[in-house]
């Protein structure tokens, strides 16, 4: 890790402060990034991690404080300047050009040319090579957007890392990755460290912090709490610092779902999907959710989990198949009718499909339950405020108030707003596509506990998560998918990571030797 004599920091930010109208996002924070050191940045949702990063990369200007880069004081006026200076960043959301090919994305902004034209051949070839090293085999001429989020995220990582960087900043790079890809990414981090690159690593996943990082800085409410070597930390202390609570109050920080998978309930199904079929997308998927049951969907990236969820919810047309809710068929099969019949879905892509950025927290929460929160076509603001208040408290949404615009919230808090939106519908079945993506440990535990609690109260849940652990521990039943087809269903005690991976591997013989993590 760190060598004998102390190295000069590659990048150092001192006394950084930033506030947005009404919110202090960051208050007097100082961080040094040393070459060859992986610096973890942790904190609750909204603690100011992304803001700190954006101050380092010229996206935001500092209200107060200074930034030194390679020994000189610098002011980066744009992301471009920082990038040209050698600071590469993978921002929290996947920020690439989805309509351009993978190869074009890889080289965007530093395109190789031949006779004035783009050297597409070279771009494709080299992209192939680069991605190959990350274990990704993809047609690099395909539009990036056609690939799953996970692949997109890997491309973003590869893109940033393949440039000649002095500093690499990763803001939740693994939020859409599955375990093996996380391994790959961490290997990349290790190599960058060897090359004396200074690395910032933001993640809500404690395992990763302990596996890959050297130093950890904790932020809370925009303030610096501590910076320590990871080796001097344990999970419990770290979490307690993040949450600002006593270490003894904190659980391990692992999944909070009480391990379920008990006996199969015999109650009548609350939701029953039969032979959902869509050409080239879904192949004869059936599933049953009983009251109080959590059905996990497992599979690799792009295996059709999200699409199954959408098909059940009526957000994606199917060629054939039926969905019954409490025994009643839903003929219209669109989101509105599903919601009316008691099915609610948390979409995977919060930014594109979830929040309405221009609206307030209150309005975002009230959105789906509007009919219940209005009278004769007129809004009932009082009723709205009551409900919103309940859920903001219950989910501990961190905001200036219910009238703050959702776009101003941190990612994790946006996710909670969406959850609140669903919960105030009082649904019978909840479809959750990556519900804990980008949520901090504390909140994650809360959300997981909430799910379990809801299930205990008789709600049926369909759960999708790229964290296998979450699916395994949190589900009563697991449906394993591959290429849009069901490989099998695991019940109760049968559910384990190995069992799932085996099912997948069995279906793809040539991948059998890929060991499950």
């Amino acid at each position, binding site marked *: 890790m760190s060598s004998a004599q102390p190295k000069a920091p590659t990048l150092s930010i001192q006394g950084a402060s930033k506030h947005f109208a009404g919110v202090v996002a960051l208050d007097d924070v100082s961080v040094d990034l040393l070459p060859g050191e992986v610096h973890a940045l942790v904190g609750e949702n909204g603690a100011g991690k992304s803001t700190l990063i954006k101050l380092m990369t010229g996206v935001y200007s500092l209200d107060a404080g200074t930034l030194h880069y390679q020994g000189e004081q610098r002011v980066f006026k744009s992301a471009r300047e920082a990038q040209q200076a050698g600071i590469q960043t993978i921002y929290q959301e996947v920020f690439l050009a989805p309509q351009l090919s993978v190869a074009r994305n890889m080289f965007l902004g530093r395109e190789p040319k031949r006779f004035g034209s783009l050297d597409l051949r070279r771009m494709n070839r080299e992209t192939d090579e680069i991605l190959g090293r990350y274990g990704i085999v993809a047609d690099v001429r395909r539009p990036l957007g056609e690939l799953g989020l996970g692949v997109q995220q890997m491309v973003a990582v590869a893109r940033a890392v393949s440039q000649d960087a002095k500093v690499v900043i990763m803001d939740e790079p693994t939020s859409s990755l599955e375990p093996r890809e996380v391994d790959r990414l961490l290997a990349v981090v290790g190599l960058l460290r060897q090359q004396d690159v200074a690395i910032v690593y933001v993640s809500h996943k404690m395992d990763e912090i302990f596996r890959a990082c050297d130093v950890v800085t904790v932020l809370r409410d925009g303030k610096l709490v501590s910076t320590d070597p990871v080796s001097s930390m344990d999970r419990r202390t770290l979490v307690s610092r993040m949450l600002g609570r006593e270490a003894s109050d904190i659980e391990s920080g692992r999944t909070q779902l009480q391990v379920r998978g008990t006996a199969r309930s015999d109650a009548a199904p609350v939701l029953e999907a039969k032979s959902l079929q869509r050409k080239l997308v879904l192949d004869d998927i059936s599933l049953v959710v009983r009251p109080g049951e959590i059905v996990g969907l497992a599979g690799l990236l792009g295996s059709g989990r999200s699409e199954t969820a959408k098909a059940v919810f009526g957000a994606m047309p199917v060629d054939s198949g039926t969905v019954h809710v409490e025994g009643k068929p839903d003929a219209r099969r669109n989101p509105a009718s599903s919601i009316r019949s008691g099915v609610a879905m948390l979409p995977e892509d919060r930014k594109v499909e979830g929040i309405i950025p221009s609206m307030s927290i209150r309005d975002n929460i009230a959105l789906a339950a509007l009919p219940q929160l*209005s009278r004769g*076509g007129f809004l009932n603001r009082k009723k709205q405020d009551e409900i919103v208040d309940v859920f903001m408290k219950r989910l501990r949404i961190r905001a200036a108030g219910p009238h703050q615009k959702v776009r101003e919230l941190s990612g994790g808090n946006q996710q909670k707003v969406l959850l609140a939106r669903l919960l105030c519908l009082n649904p019978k079945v909840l479809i959750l596509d990556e519900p804990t993506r980008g949520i901090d440990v504390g909140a994650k535990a809360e959300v997981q506990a909430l799910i379990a609690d809801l299930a205990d109260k008789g709600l049926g849940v369909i759960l999708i998560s790229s964290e296998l652990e979450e699916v395994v521990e949190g589900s009563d039943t697991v449906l394993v998918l591959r290429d849009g087809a069901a490989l099998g269903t695991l019940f109760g005690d049968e559910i384990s990571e190995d069992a799932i991976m085996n099912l997948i591997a069995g279906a793809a013989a040539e991948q059998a030797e890929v060991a499950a993590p």
Partner: protein
Amino acid sequence: MSTAVLQRIPRLDRKAVDGDFVRERGVYIALVLLILYNVFFTPFFNRFETVTTLMLQTPAVLIVSLGMLMVIGTGGIDLSVGATMAIAAAVMGKFVAPDPKGLGLPLALAIITALVAGLLVGIFNGIVVGVGGVQPIVATLSLLVGGRGIALVITSGALIELFVPGLTKLGRGQVSNIPYIFLIALALVVVVAVLVRQTTFGFRLLAIGGNVRAATLAGLPVRRTIITVYALSGLLAAIAGIIATARTRAADPSYLGLGLELSAITAVVVGGTALNGGRVRILGTVAGVILMQLLTTTLTAHNVPDSATQVAEALIIVGAVYIQRTSRSGE
């Protein structure tokens, strides 16, 4: 038009709090400045007649702008409003004009038919946009091109002069110096304000403008809402068409409302509403309409040549939007 979700915080944000005052009120400040200029430099400005004239000249644009405002709130745009005005005028003219040119039917019936015509045009737009999924600007462009043709077909191309007492009264009647048509416009402002701010319909409209996909997944009746919004825009355009006809005492299929779509869009935007949807400013729009009309009046009154008038208008548009820009660029 791209809705960037990650906020780009302009460097000015430190001054956000004090900057807000000007930003939020840019259009009102511009309006006050223009009025002050007139008070001091325009002969005969300081008479009540000036206000009356303004109250006669603004209602048509204002009413159209209200519809446009809602459409823009959904992230759409309605280029067909001018043509819709012409259609409504033509229908009314055809119905009410005496025999050789028209059918000689009662005025009330003619007005109702004209309103229905506007509503139908709007519903048609709404279906093309909401169900057909056609981009609003081209969906409504087809009626901008064809709608005026429909109006011309109805009147066989000619302008129909209307010497109908009721209509004349509508066009220039007043209650204690306030023209009827201005009162109508004001009433509609209130109606639209209530619709947008107090009803589920208004809520949905803004949600759709903010993020259609999210709105769909949240189970909102997206199509129905979009169709309603365009229908209202058509209806309001028809009202404007009737009012304009009452003012000119002629149903003019060729020129009535010509280019008005751009005036309406300008007023809405100058009033502080962004084109990307999800947010609307109603009072700002009213101020925007008055500002643009007063600007034209001022330049005309000072006998400024066309060339300078147009340049001045351009500068005012950019200036007004510039003042208010930061409140928008955060989106």
